[in-house]
């Protein structure tokens, strides 16, 4: 693990992992979100992303606080509830040369933020959108969210009688080009998926089940550590070889999907589910819907498409960030105004 040798090791751009750390977490001890922050640190460190070249975006809620706990040297924007997608969109429009990571929660995304989430996915904006999904509202003391499973029980005995929104199936239908689910307690899978996410060009949507130790980690919860450890069914083993790493072959190629990422990295998905093709959109949605009917929690990379234009491609903007273009490029000359005035006379 990269985290164990923190002080001595440097990554391939010469930075120690300390340069990727954030402030001390104020979340509850044992919160799944803290484990996710750790994996984000590891992934950025291992991928050698310059901390200053990262934008950390979030909305409101426990999950949205977590950007404060990783990568202090990155530029951060903790916005308003459910509206991170719009802020992130604006920020990426102004500077599309950055690595952009959004952290949201199930309430912030699937309830108050659903409208913006839908359109973010649809635009294939180049960014990583992580949902730290615990099925409850923590900061307001444990109400169900829209991703809580049908029949899930709160500590108080309240039972959720509405069906869960499957945010992964939704994201795939909407146009996200990299969609996966993981579990905050599965270090290896989550880290690998995050590294592949960094290499992807387009919208990455990762739904990370993250048990709430205070309000939703008890018997009857379907988003508890115990439930996830017993019911997590990976559809593929996720392997990833960064473009700067030596390629080691540890997969049986007959069962492996290899996806070449835009930066030359390699995403390798070893099938655990028979006939699972992560590039088949309809099959991905069907698999997720069937799992929901069977009360199964699938994890892995459900869908990937490296051939779609991003929103930035479609807008055909200049290579330099729009936010820092010089006046000579943004203010038309006097002659342009003169021509306009003549036409109006």
């Amino acid at each position, binding site marked *: 693990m990269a985290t164990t040798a923190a002080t001595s090791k440097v990554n391939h751009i010469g930075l120690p992992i300390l340069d990727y750390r954030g402030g001390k977490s104020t979340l509850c001890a044992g919160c799944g979100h803290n484990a996710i922050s750790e994996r984000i640190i590891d992934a950025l460190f291992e991928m050698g992303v310059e901390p200053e070249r990262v934008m950390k975006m979030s909305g409101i809620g426990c999950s949205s606080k977590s950007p404060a706990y990783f990568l202090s040297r990155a530029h951060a924007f903790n916005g308003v509830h459910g509206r991170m997608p719009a802020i992130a969109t604006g920020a990426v429009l102004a500077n599309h040369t950055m690595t952009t990571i959004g952290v949201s929660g199930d309430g912030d995304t699937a309830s108050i933020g659903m409208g913006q989430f839908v359109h973010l996915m649809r635009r294939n904006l180049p960014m990583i959108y992580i949902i730290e999904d615990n099925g409850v509202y923590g900061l307001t003391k444990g109400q169900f969210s829209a991703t809580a499973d049908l029949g899930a029980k709160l500590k108080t005995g309240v039972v959720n009688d509405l069906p869960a929104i499957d945010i992964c199936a939704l994201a795939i239908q909407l146009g996200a080009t990299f969609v996966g689910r993981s579990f905050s307690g599965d270090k290896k899978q989550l880290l690998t998926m995050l590294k592949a996410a960094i290499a992807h060009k387009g919208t990455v949507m990762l739904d990370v089940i993250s048990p709430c130790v205070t309000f939703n980690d008890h018997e009857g919860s379907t988003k508890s550590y115990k439930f996830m450890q017993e019911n997590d069914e990976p559809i593929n083993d996720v392997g990833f070889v960064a473009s700067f790493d030596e390629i080691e072959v540890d997969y049986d190629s007959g069962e492996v999907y290899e996806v070449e990422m835009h930066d030359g990295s390699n995403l390798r998905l070893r099938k655990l589910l028979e006939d699972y093709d992560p590039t088949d959109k309809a099959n991905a949605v069907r698999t997720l819907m069937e799992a929901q009917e069977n009360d199964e929690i699938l994890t892995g990379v459900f869908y990937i498409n490296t051939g779609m234009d991003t929103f930035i491609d479609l807008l055909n903007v200049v290579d330099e960030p729009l*936010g820092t273009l010089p006046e000579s490029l943004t203010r038309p000359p006097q002659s342009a105004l003169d021509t306009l005035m003549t036409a109006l006379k």
Partner: protein
Amino acid sequence: MATLDPSLGNRQGASGARERITNDFSINVATVNGSGSQSANSVLMKSIFGMGVPVSGKNLFPSNIAGQPTWFLIRASKDGYFARKRISEILVALNPESAMDDVRALPAGGVAIYEESLNLDQARADVFCYPVPFEKLIASICPEVKLRKLVKNMIYVGVVAQLLAIDLGVVESCLLRQFAKKQKVFDLNFGGVKAGWEYAQANLTKRDSFFIERMNKTEGKIIIDGNAACGMGAVFAGVTVVAWYPITPSTTVIEATSDLLKKLRVTPEGKATFAVVQAEDELAAIGMVLGAGWAGARAMTSTSGPGMSLMAEFCGLGYYAEIPGVIIIVQRTGPSTGLPTRTQQADLLSAAFLSHGDTKNPILLPGSVKECFELTQAAFDLAERMQTPVFVLTDLDLGMNNWISEPFDYPAKPLDRGKLLTVEDLERLGGFARYRNVDGDAIGWRTLPGMRHPKASYFTRGSGHNDAAQYTENPEEYQAVMDRLALKFEKARNLVPAPVVVKDGSSKIGFLAFGSTDCALTESLDQIKQRYGKDADYLRIRAWPFAQAIHDFVASHERIYVVEQNRDAQLASLLKLDLPAAQVTKLRSILHYNGWPVDAEFITEEFALQEGL
């Protein structure tokens, strides 16, 4: 054929010779919306402009795609008055539904031009009636049935031009400009104009008193609507990110911006130096503006009342986290959905305090199309200088109608990008505190995402923070930031555009107004002088927070009339919050809020009433 002879009407002099009324009347073109009368109205208006006569056009249209009554008022005014005239002397009646009401609204001695089957001559014996067989004429010149509806409107242009003695060559050149590269379209439309002209010449005997005569008062001037002017302002302010959601009457701000960006802001390699995004709603639009502004873009959105209400939450974030952004509001008639195609100035208070908590937003208030251009640019500079969302508040009258103006001037100063630290600065300083008042101007220095320096980043948040942008719930730290924000707003009195002293003589009476009310008020002041022999001073407000000059103006007059187009005296209310207690009692209000642009008569009558004249 005109069958009646109202020449015995009240305009006849003792000798029987009619008084000739030249370049000083209003034409009401009553049509059905969706019938394509816009081009014809525009050509008629521009033809009068082409005759050198000051002219204004006001489109009073319904919130509907097709089939409802719509009126286009064209006012020729040798004195250069551009407000709506309460009474139009000439009616072009093309809408059977509204024709009876329209003809009844004419003054005695007025003129009615109408489809002959409407038989309006039965309704009024005291107006000059000119029936025209539009249907027959169009059938003879336009074989294609589909196009008849559009070309039919050009016939009235020809009839009106002939009756008012507008030079046919002027009409032709206006049409040529309108359909610049479409010879066939021009031919068809000019065919309509000529058919009307020739019909009038052969069949109508001019007996009314209204004439357009050549003047030279429009030379060198331009015609443009306020929304296009705002769009142009944004482009010459170097806007880079535009996010918006369609809404009447602001949509054309973005259309104009977008068209110009495509023309003027594409590199030789074919890449755009801008991004225009149609967002999913106004919440997202302002969110994108703030995200972009945070990351260094000159970002803007444009909307109207309902959209502005949706922007409230984000606006407070922009204020508290200190992020630049420009919000152009083209006001329409509220509350709620209200009258989407009618005008008002009722979003002033809402914009001033948009969002919860102690939020205050600077507002720029253009009073002309030229100021739409200039103040939109000023808004971008101010937003980055003050690091806050800045509103530009116009209205439907200013925004969607065509106005005559002096040509716009190229900006004299370079863009003001505000207080931005460079990597070298950070190296020298060894770090920075985002919200610290280091210069005494209450404005902190900021960095932009992407700056390659370990000390460049800071944590932007809408939650409580100290001057180093760290989360805090400490009472002193929280309050220190709030107090600095208040000081920053106070200091902005000197940063915003100064008010315009239209007139400041020795009168005890002063007028205050903002925005499109200006045109009716300047005309009203002349009426007040002519009718009551009274001089009154006038200061036009162009921004909130209020400059000291506004306080001085109030202090130097005994009575202040605040003229505005809303029910609740919003400008007066804002002034009352700002003025010393002793000054507040001087304020009186003249309020117009029925959805139509205020006219001079209304102000004059209200003033006379309140003054007991």
